[in-house]
């Protein structure tokens, strides 16, 4: 029950009127003023962010819980060590996905990467390096996301990566740029309505090791569970009649629906999985810079860059979202 309530809160947050978002941003800016004022400012984050102990900059005071996992550092456009390093290289190296339609995907007909994540990565690069920024996209598989950041083979990972406490011990995250959650995908004509008892007796497909698998293990609703290596394999099973429904997060579910007009997302998301830009834990200045870019990206109401990307890539299969999730800060 608690999970469901939390999901509703998040849904409301995601669908909150743009005006509310603007208010939050204004409040954030007000808090930031002293931080931006100078090095000696008494702002709580400043000494930790730029001091010699930068490695311990993540707010250690508040213990990470699922409730506050999405909290990040307050935005700043100051150039720290990490931003300077990127500017000296003259290029931003971004770890992305190349398998997820509409998010990060290599179009076989053009050979180019495209999607919501790719647009966001370009916006970050342009903010740091200027209009003709050089972005090097590196396809990183799921298992290489954290090692690539720790070894600094990439500057950041923008790859439908869920912010959670386990990962926050290994890498740093920006504020949430998309509010995802597990949801049910089924044929449009199917009697399955949501993640509820309409699944009874049905064969439900989910990716091995995914949140969907653990949710189904906790509450199967009488469904028979079929696990496959990758979430997209579920759509194959669905089309071949080997499964009746798919449980995956709604962002990936939307990507599946985009490839098969006969299926759609059913009901509402029933978990809370915010996506964030992941960076090396030591690059606190870069985290703040990315949060500033995200602020700009989200700003502008219906004409914001975020909304434009949403309309381009997601709206057709993930309708009803009126704005980005509100940022949460822990410092």
């Amino acid at each position, binding site marked *: 029950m608690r999970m469901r309530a939390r999901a509703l809160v998040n849904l409301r947050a995601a669908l909150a009127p743009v005006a509310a978002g603007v208010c939050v941003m204004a409040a954030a800016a007000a808090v930031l003023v002293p931080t931006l004022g100078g090095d000696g400012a008494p702002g709580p984050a400043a000494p930790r962010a730029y001091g010699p102990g930068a490695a311990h900059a993540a707010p250690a005071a508040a213990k990470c819980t699922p409730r506050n996992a999405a909290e990040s550092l307050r935005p700043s456009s100051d150039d720290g060590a990490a931003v300077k390093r990127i500017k000296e290289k003259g290029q931003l190296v971004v770890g992305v996905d190349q*398998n997820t*339609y509409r998010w990060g995907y*290599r179009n076989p007909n053009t*050979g180019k990467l495209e999607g919501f994540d790719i647009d966001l990565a370009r916006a970050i690069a342009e903010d740091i390096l200027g209009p003709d920024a050089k972005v090097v996209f590196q396809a990183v598989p799921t298992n290489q996301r954290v090692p690539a950041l720790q070894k600094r083979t990439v500057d950041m990972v923008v790859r439908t990566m869920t912010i959670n406490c386990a990962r926050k011990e290994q890498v740093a995250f920006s504020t949430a740029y998309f509010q995802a959650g597990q949801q049910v995908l089924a044929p449009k004509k199917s009697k399955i309505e949501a993640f509820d008892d309409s699944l009874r007796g049905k064969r439900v497909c989910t990716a091995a090791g995914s949140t969907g698998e653990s949710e189904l293990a906790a509450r199967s609703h009488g469904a028979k569970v079929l696990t496959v290596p990758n979430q*997209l394999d579920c759509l194959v099973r669905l089309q071949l009649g080997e499964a009746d429904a798919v449980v995956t997060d709604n962002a990936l579910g939307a990507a599946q629906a985009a*490839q*098969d007009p006969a299926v759609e997302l059913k009901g509402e998301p029933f978990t809370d999985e915010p996506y964030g830009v992941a960076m090396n834990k030591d690059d606190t200045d870069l985290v703040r810079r990315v949060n500033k870019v995200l602020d700009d990206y989200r700003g502008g109401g219906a004409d914001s860059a975020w909304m434009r990307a949403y309309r381009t890539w997601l709206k057709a299969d993930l309708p009803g979202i009126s704005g980005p999730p509100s940022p949460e800060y822990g410092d």
Partner: protein
Amino acid sequence: MSSVPTSSVSASAPGRRTAWADGLDELRAAATTEPGRLRVIGAVLALLVLVFGAATAWQVADRAAAADDVVERSQPLSADAASIYRSLADADTTAAGGFLSGGEESRATRQRYAADIATASQLLVKASANTRGSDAAGRQMAKLNSLLPRYTGLVETARTNNRQGLPLGGAYLRYANDQMRKELLPAARALYDAETERLAADYDSAKAWPWWALAAGVLAIGVLGWAQRRHFRRTNRVFNQGLLAATAASVAVLLWLVVGHAVARAGLSDSYDQGARSLRVLNEARIDALQARGDENLTLVARGAVLTSDQQDFYEVGFRSGMRDLAAGDGRGRAAEGGRLGEALALADDEAGREAVRDALAQVRQWQERHAEARAADDRGDYDQALAKVIGSDRPTRESFDRVDAALQRALVHEQEEFRSAADGGRGALGGLAVGAAVLAVVAAAGAVLGIGRRLSEYR
């Protein structure tokens, strides 16, 4: 002495004598006189020699038929099963390769895939027609017949989605590959194993010593010898021409049988050692190479979408294990001379065979080096470079794989020839033996009867 049997017979069953007892009586009566004994000896000699001839003809014909089966039937069937196995693996590898070249597959790739599927279907029909009621082989053929259309359906769906630019195509291709790997190839392998077992069984029956014929021969010659010794003792005459001819003919049949069978056996053993075993190892090496190539292609199709339980790329792990089977070593670095290619090298018995295998091994080493470069590029995030290294035109792994395949094909053709010539040599050694043994046995029987008849005439 003559009264004993008569009294015993009349005492036991007066008036109810059977024909058998009559015959036995007459024999006993005859055995009491020298002409009677001679008649019995003549009959036994003729019978023994004829039995020897018949046993030889029967057992040799049996072995010749088994040797014919090896060459004409089970080896070709085993080779066909190997072709089915290879065509399926090649189709799968080709499908994945075609996928990598983008929305538009090359004509050559499409044709190669279609040819592979056609070969597999045709050979399955042929194998079904030739099957000798073997359950194991029949079951696998039925399984392959039902799975193959399903597989090709999955590949077509994968292509359709890929042409539309949908990543779902890649997922379909991976599913098709999964079916191939888990269902079709194991069935094709089981079929190959069943046909190879049949080949081994035919070899065994062709090579089995004809013990009945040998025993009959030794007995016939032994009894002929005894009869001549008896003749010499009684008459002091050294030679009886008829018996001598019978002995000579029997000894000739026995020698022919022993030498002919030994030569045939040697030829068949050679064809097995030099041909059949090499062919088996080379066929397996070829499948290993195909599967490694398929995994290499799929690593780039799946792009890290499928991981093993310890978070490694599933297809890269498959590639390494395929390479390990093929050429030992760690599958990442240089190939050592172990694995199937090492085995094939040890089995190759002449320079031509060894040269082809050594060439394959050298190409595998080059393949591994190029593969490492492709992996390094992919790990750097340079997908285009990795793709170029795998299917491009500047020293790609595709080229290395094609060379490995070509070298193995050369080795296979060579070993097939070796097999055929050794097996034909072996089969030739049995030629005419069955007929020869029958004719000589009749001659020997006639000799024995005439020889005894000559002695009998002295009593008239």
